[in-house]
C-alpha cells in the first residue's frame, strides 16, 4: 500500500502529520491557544469534508450547509442546557432528558442533521444550478431566523454551556485531549470518505455529477444518488457542528448564518474541490490566515479574497491540485 502510494497520498499523509505535530509542539511549549486553533482547524475541516461530498462529488453547490452545522450545534446546546439546568427536553409523549455525554450528543446531531438533509434534499433536488443554490440558501435563512426567535434557547444571544461535555475515559477540558478526540473523528471520517469515493456508490455519484443522462441510461437514478450524497454530507457537517459548539462551549444563531455556508465553500475551493484532503488543507490555510493576517490588519478578508481569486483563476484543483497534479483513478 505505502509502496504504491501516489504523490497525493504522500501530501495527505504530510498534512495529517502536520496537523498532529503542531498541537503536540504547542503542548510541549505550553501554548494552549495554539491547541485551540488546531482544534478549530480540525472541526472546520470536518464540516468541509462533509460539504465536499455534496459539492465535490455530487456537484451540488449548497449555500445552506450552515443548517446542518447549526443543527449539530443546537443538538449539543439544547441537550447540555437541559442537563445543566436539571430540566427535561420534553416530557410528553416520552420523557427526554438532557445529557452531557458526547457520544449521545453526536448521535443526536448526526441523526437530526441527516433527517434535515433528507427533507431539504428532496425539495431542493427538484431543481439544479442557480435555483438549487437559492433554495438551499432560503432554507439556511429559515433556520437562522427561527433560531433568532427561539427564545426558549436564548434567541439571538444563543446558549452558553458552562462545562464541556464528557467522553468516557477522557478529560475533555484538557485542550490536547479534546483535540485528540476531534482529530480521531476527522481521521475516521476521512477514511470512510476515501472508501466512499472509490466505492460503487462513489463511482456512480461521480458520473451523476458529470453526465446525469448517461447514468440514467445505464439504469441508475442520478437524483437519488445525489440525494443520498446530500444526506451523508449533511450528517458529517452536523457532527462538526456539535464539536464546534463543544469547542466554544457556546451556540448561537450565527452557526446557521449563510456567511458560514459560504465560508465552508471557500475552504473546499481553497483546498481542492472533490479532493479527499482539499477541505483539510483549506481549513488549515483559512485558520492560519485568519489568525496571522487578522492580527496584522482587520481587512484580512481582502487578502483571502485575492488568494481565492488566484486559485479559482489559475489552480482549479485548489492547493492540493496544485501540489499533487490531477487526480488519478485508484484500481
Amino acid at each position, binding site marked *: 500500500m505505502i509502496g504504491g502510494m501516489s504523490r497525493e497520498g504522500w501530501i495527505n499523509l504530510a498534512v495529517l502529520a502536520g496537523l498532529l505535530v503542531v498541537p503536540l509542539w504547542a503542548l510541549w511549549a505550553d501554548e494552549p491557544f495554539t491547541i485551540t486553533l488546531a482544534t478549530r482547524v480540525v472541526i472546520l475541516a470536518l464540516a468541509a469534508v462533509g460539504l465536499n461530498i455534496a459539492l465535490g462529488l455530487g456537484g451540488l453547490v449548497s449555500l445552506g450547509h450552515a443548517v446542518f452545522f447549526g443543527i449539530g450545534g443546537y443538538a449539543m446546546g439544547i441537550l447540555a442546557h437541559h442537563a445543566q439546568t436539571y430540566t427535561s427536553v420534553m416530557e410528553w409523549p416520552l420523557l427526554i432528558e438532557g445529557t452531557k455525554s458526547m457520544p449521545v450528543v453526536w448521535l443526536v446531531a448526526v441523526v437530526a442533521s441527516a433527517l434535515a438533509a433528507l427533507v431539504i434534499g428532496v425539495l431542493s433536488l427538484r431543481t439544479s444550478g442557480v435555483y438549487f443554490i437559492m433554495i438551499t440558501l432560503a432554507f439556511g435563512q429559515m433556520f437562522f431566523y427561527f433560531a433568532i426567535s427561539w427564545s426558549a434557547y436564548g434567541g439571538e444571544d444563543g446558549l452558553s454551556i458552562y462545562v464541556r461535555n464528557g467522553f468516557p475515559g477522557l478529560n475533555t477540558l484538557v485542550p490536547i485531549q479534546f483535540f485528540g478526540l476531534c482529530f480521531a473523528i476527522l481521521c475516521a471520517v476521512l477514511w470512510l470518505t476515501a*472508501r*466512499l469515493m*472509490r*466505492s*460503487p*456508490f*462513489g*463511482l*456512480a455519484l*461521480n*458520473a451523476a455529477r*458529470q*453526465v446525469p*443522462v*448517461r*447514468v*440514467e*441510461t*445505464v*439504469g*441508475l*437514478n442520478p437524483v437519488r*444518488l445525489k440525494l*443520498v450524497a446530500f444526506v451523508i454530507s449533511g450528517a458529517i457537517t452536523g457532527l462538526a457542528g456539535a464539536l464546534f459548539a463543544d469547542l466554544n462551549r457556546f451556540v448561537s444563531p450565527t452557526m446557521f448564518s449563510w456567511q458560514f455556508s459560504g465560508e465552508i465553500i471557500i475552504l473546499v475551493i481553497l483546498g481542492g474541490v472533490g479532493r479527499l484532503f482539499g477541505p483539510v488543507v483549506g481549513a488549515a490555510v483559512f485558520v492560519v490566515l485568519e489568525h496571522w493576517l487578522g492580527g496584522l490588519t482587520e481587512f484580512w478578508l481582502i487578502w483571502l479574497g485575492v488568494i481565492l481569486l488566484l486559485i479559482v483563476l489559475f489552480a482549479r484543483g485548489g492547493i492540493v491540485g496544485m501540489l499533487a497534479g490531477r*487526480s488519478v*483513478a*485508484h*484500481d
Partner: protein
Amino acid sequence: MTEPVLETRGITKRFGALTASEDVSLDLKAGEIHAIIGPNGAGKSTLIQQICGLLHPDAGQVRLGGADVTRMAAAARARAGLGRTFQVSQLAMEDTVLQNVVLGALGAVGRPWRFFGAALRDAELRDRAEAALAQVGLCDVAAMRCADLSHGQRRQLEVAVALSLSPRAFVMDEPMAGLGAEGSKRMTGFLSELRGTAPILLVEHDMDAVFALADRISVLVYGRIIATGTVAEIRADRAVRDAYLGEEA
C-alpha cells in the same frame, strides 16, 4: 412468428402545432439491424427519445420484449434491457475508460448502494466491464482518462458502455458521427457482428454504412414513416427517392 424485441405502436408526439412523430409503428426483430433514415428535422431524435424514455409520447405504445414500457422512466427501461448510445458522446470525461464501463456494469448489476468496497476491485463489475472493452477493442486504453481519448475511441467507448448492460436491444443514435472513412469502416464491421449479440435500432446519416449494415430500413419524413423495407426495396422506392434520397441514390 416470434415477438419483436422492440416495438413502437402508433407513437404520436406533438409540440404545439408541430407534429414530431405521427403514428409511428416499427419493430426490431432478433438478430437484425433496423435503420431509421430521414432528412434533418424528420423527427428521428424525438423518436429515439420516446423509445428510450426521455420523452413520453402523447399517444401510442413502446414495447420491449413483449411488455409495455411506455410509462417507464429511462432508467427503468435501461434496466429492462435497452442499451443506448448517444449522437454526442455522453461520457464521464474526468474518469478513466474503465470507470466509464464499470458504471454501465453497475447499472446492469443494479446495486449502486455500496459505500465501502472499491468498485474497480469488484470482480463481477470488472469482468463485465473488461469483457465489453475487449469486444470493442479498447482494453489497451482502459486506464486512460476519457478526456484524453480520440474522437473515434470515444465512439467505441460509447458502444462499450451500452454493451456492458448486456441489453436485449441496442438503440444507437448516429454511432458514425464524426468518424473518418477509416473509422466508419471499422465501426461498420463491428456493428455488423454486434447484431448477433442483440438487435440494433440504428439512426444514421452515413448512407454507405446504412446500406452496408441494415437488414431493414424505415424512412421517416415529417414525423411519419413513409416506407419500410429491405435495402433494395428502399432504394427502388419512388416516394423515398423524391422525399429524401434524391440524387444520392
